């Protein structure tokens, strides 16, 4: 039951175009519109709309953009990338420096930031001609370390950080979380639909063919090198766009925001969420962000209550808890949250005859 795809009852996909629709029934359309409305009402709902919560949601939104790109590269095209935050850094610094030196607004910076990150992505993705799997992952790890070093040495403002203007549209300046929330959500939703579009198209099918068996894909006439590079370009473009958003949202760019640990967390997010699944990316980001939040909230409380253990034991207990939960999760649910979501959907559609 778990591997099968159950369309909503009564939907006949008599043409390919119909089969590829994202929204297939009226009920789905209503749910989509309602959830979009709720999403955009969040800043005015009491209880939820504290600055802290909004910052958390905006951060998750930007992370979702980063992880969408990564999931297209890793989940759909099968190329592991453990240097994603370096490409985010390229985007953030491009946007930040354009703003700092020429005072370009966010709207003009998005595309240059994405392109700059893509160029870096092409340079470090080029070894994928000859390398596969872990070896390719290593060149992306090299991207992380080398790009950070280049920023440290050749951009004099990088380690100290510099100020970036908040985005403005008409007379509104989006300088507080409850205002920036709208920009973040518009971009996150747009990028989600863009990603969904890519993976439904011929490009997406070529990616999946390369992931499943690259030799067979080549035999079918897919130019592997070109599509692998394209996957790198898309992945790093997403990273660059997210970087530009991040720079204008934080109103401050600094080297320390983009570390190897972040890159590893991005990979963890897409694996927990589900490789090769757009919904899974969103689930994974939310799951990991929530887990981290628990650490930040509960950590100091635990630390305060145990005095006889060495300093740092509280955070140690939480690290053990989070990592233990995650390892158990991976052992029991290796195909990610998206798989569980599919099972739930199938259960709902087959109910009450689920056998």
């Amino acid at each position, binding site marked *: 039951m778990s591997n099968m795809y159950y369309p909503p009852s009564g939907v006949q996909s008599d043409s390919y175009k119909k089969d590829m629709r994202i929204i297939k029934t009226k009920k789905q359309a209503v749910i989509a519109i309602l959830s979009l409305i709720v999403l955009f009402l969040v800043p005015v709902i009491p209880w939820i709309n504290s600055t802290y919560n909004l910052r958390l949601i905006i951060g998750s939104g930007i992370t979702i953009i980063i992880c969408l790109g990564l999931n297209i590269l890793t989940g759909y095209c099968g190329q592991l990338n453990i240097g994603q935050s370096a490409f985010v850094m390229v985007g953030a610094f491009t946007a930040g420096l354009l703003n700092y030196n020429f005072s370009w607004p966010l709207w003009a910076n998005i595309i240059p930031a994405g392109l700059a990150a893509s160029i870096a992505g092409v340079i470090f993705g080029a070894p994928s001609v000859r390398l596969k799997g872990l070896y390719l992952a290593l060149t992306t790890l090299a991207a992380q370390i080398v790009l950070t070093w280049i920023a440290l040495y050749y951009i004099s403002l990088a380690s100290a950080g510099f100020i970036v203007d908040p985005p403005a549209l008409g007379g509104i300046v989006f300088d507080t979380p409850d205002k920036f929330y709208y920009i973040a959500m518009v971009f996150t939703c747009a990028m989600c639909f863009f990603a969904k579009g890519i993976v439904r198209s011929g490009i997406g099918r070529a990616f999946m063919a390369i992931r499943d068996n690259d030799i067979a894909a080549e035999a079918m006439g897919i130019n592997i090198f070109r599509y692998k590079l394209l996957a790198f370009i898309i992945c790093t473009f997403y990273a660059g766009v997210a970087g530009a958003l991040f720079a204008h949202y934080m109103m401050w760019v600094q080297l320390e925001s983009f570390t190897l640990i972040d890159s590893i967390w991005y990979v963890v997010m897409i694996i927990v969420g589900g490789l090769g699944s757009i919904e899974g990316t969103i689930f994974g980001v939310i799951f990991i962000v929530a887990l981290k939040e628990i650490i930040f909230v509960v950590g100091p409380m635990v630390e305060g209550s145990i005095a006889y253990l060495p300093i740092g034991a509280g955070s*140690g207990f939480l690290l053990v808890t989070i*990592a233990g939960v995650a390892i158990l999760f991976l052992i029991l649910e290796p195909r990610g949250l998206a798989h569980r979501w599919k099972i739930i959907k199938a259960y709902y559609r087959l109910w009450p005859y689920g056998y």
Partner: protein
Amino acid sequence: MEVFLQLVISGLVNGSIYGLVAVGFVLIYKCSGVLNFAQGNMVLIGAYIFWTFKGPLGFGLLPSLFFGAALSFLFGMIVERLSLRPLVGQSILSMITVTIFLSLLLEGVTCIMWGSNPLSKADIFPKGTINLGFFNVMIDNILAFCFALIVMTVLILFFQYTRLGLAMRGVAEGHQIMQALGIRVKKILTISWGIAGMAGTIGGIILADKIGFGLGLSHIGIAAIPAAFIGGLESPLGAILGGLIIGLVESIVSGYVGNAAGTPAAYVLLVIVMLFRPYGFFGLERIERV
């Protein structure tokens, strides 16, 4: 010239440490095809165990070394049994993710047992300098290098000439064939994790003698990855030579260019080597066109 020789010596010492840690990467990769991101934290825990015997418990140098090595061997086996064994047959990506979480878990365990502050110093090698005529050498550097060299030689002899080493090399070739020949593959996998932990721990102890016992010891994991790849992920000898190469490059570049340039230089070298010899210098070349 004197500066250069000093850099070469410290590079060789660092390189031997990288080599020992990289052997751990290679062993685990050979047997199970996983890059163990938790290697750095296994090194850390091994070194802390050693410190516990040497410092608070007051054992001598050799007994503490023995206990440190033995317990880290056991520890590696336990880690394999509890976290990686249930995942045999799963995709490589989820196994790698498990090792990433494992590194967090081990860091947590370290924090609970020993706290997050650096521990007090425990001297291992006698300090001092010898005058070699035209320049001075630190005794602890020489001793550390010799010690690492001995451990490496023992490891290579073990792989080449013992039945267990032979079985481990066989498991790297293919699990099914080895099972058909009556080798217990799961046992070999567990033992390879143990040896990986032990080799890394000895490297970590030597490193801790230089930089002190602190959580920063686990960064050796990231720094040693290029060594394993340049040597070729399938060859312990390659890992050791790769470690020495990486150590030399890092030390010389950071001496002449700037302190932070060492690790990036190692990674640039890694990318260049990958472009021309994708499987490293001693790695197994799989004939497969992409």
